[in-house]
């Protein structure tokens, strides 16, 4: 009974523009399919692209990791040989820089003619200065290394000794211009006879 009651109401003439609006909305779903497919393709393409980029990045990072691991292993081997070699002499020098107490540790390998130097607790340099390490030889002071300390952290370096014929008798450290000096000219941090 009530199924037909709606027909008891007189009809109303819809505004002409309503038809276009209604049909467009009703049929929009079917016509939206191409857009949906295109959107899906874009999403898939983006996914494939991202996966390719991620795979490439992972491969590159894995290669870099392997390279760094090999380098660390080599350095560990070098440090280990320095420390444990019977020909290595260990010298630790307390130093005071900028009101701070630190130390310079020298592993002197007489067999391989090289030093491993570790600096701890050195005050950071002024912007135009650097620490310079010197070999004290029988022919005078020879430059060993220039170390610009911009950050408050330990520094480790390997140094080859001067060429044969120059007997290294000790080490010294001074504060020099940032580019380094040919001979010591600044304040002395330490001077040591081995």
């Amino acid at each position: 009974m009530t199924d037909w009651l709606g027909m008891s109401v007189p009809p109303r003439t819809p505004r002409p523009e309503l038809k276009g609006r209604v049909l467009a909305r009703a049929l929009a779903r079917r016509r939206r399919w191409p857009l949906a497919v295109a959107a899906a393709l874009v999403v898939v393409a983006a996914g494939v692209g991202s996966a390719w980029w991620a795979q490439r990045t992972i491969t590159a990072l894995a290669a870099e990791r392997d390279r760094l691991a090999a380098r660390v292993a080599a350095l560990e081997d070098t440090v280990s040989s320095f420390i444990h070699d019977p020909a290595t002499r260990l010298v630790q020098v307390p130093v005071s820089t900028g009101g701070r107490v630190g130390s310079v540790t020298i592993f002197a390998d007489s067999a391989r003619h090289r030093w491993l130097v570790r600096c701890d607790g050195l005050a950071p340099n002024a912007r135009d200065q650097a620490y310079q390490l010197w070999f004290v030889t029988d022919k005078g002071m020879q430059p060993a290394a220039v170390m610009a300390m911009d950050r408050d952290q330990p520094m480790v370096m390997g140094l080859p000794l001067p060429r044969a014929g120059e007997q290294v008798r000790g080490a010294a450290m001074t504060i020099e211009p940032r580019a380094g000096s040919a001979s010591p000219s600044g304040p002395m941090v330490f001077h040591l006879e081995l």
Partner: protein
Amino acid sequence: MRRLKARDEHALRELYEALAPWVLGLAYRILHDEDEAEEVVSDVFVKVWRHVHRHDPRRGPLVPWVLSITRNRALDELRRRRRWWRKADRLGQAQGPGDELENPAPHEATVPGWPLHREVHAALATLPDELRRVVTLAYFEGLSHSQIARRLQQPLGTVKTRLRAAHHKLTDQLAHLKDWLE
């Protein structure tokens, strides 16, 4: 119906031409707001187009199915609107006591389905006032039995009895109706 189920867009256009005036009329009768009624029309045809495969011809013709969707959608809108009390007053004024039955306008006799409208309208008009009143409140305003009882300040049993009586009378008078759309 077959063409609609076969996703024939021309069939949808023809259905709109045939039923949009009736759908809009019913929605407007319930909502008394042209814009909201048009929104209902839009929703109804979208729903019919997308869910026509759910219609079972054995359970009834197409037109009552569409009108049923229209009524439900319009009543949903009406209930939503009733939550805003500032609109409720305007609605009450629009639905005066003599508003339930509107006289058919002769110039509209060319609209498809008009003979069917006349029959349903006449069947409703032949109901005694007290029966027609409860049918109108139940069908066009979506009120429950107890809400009708409160509205008319009558016992709930009386309302149920009158609705049952109206149902029997209308069923007798409208049993022969057939869909004019094939």
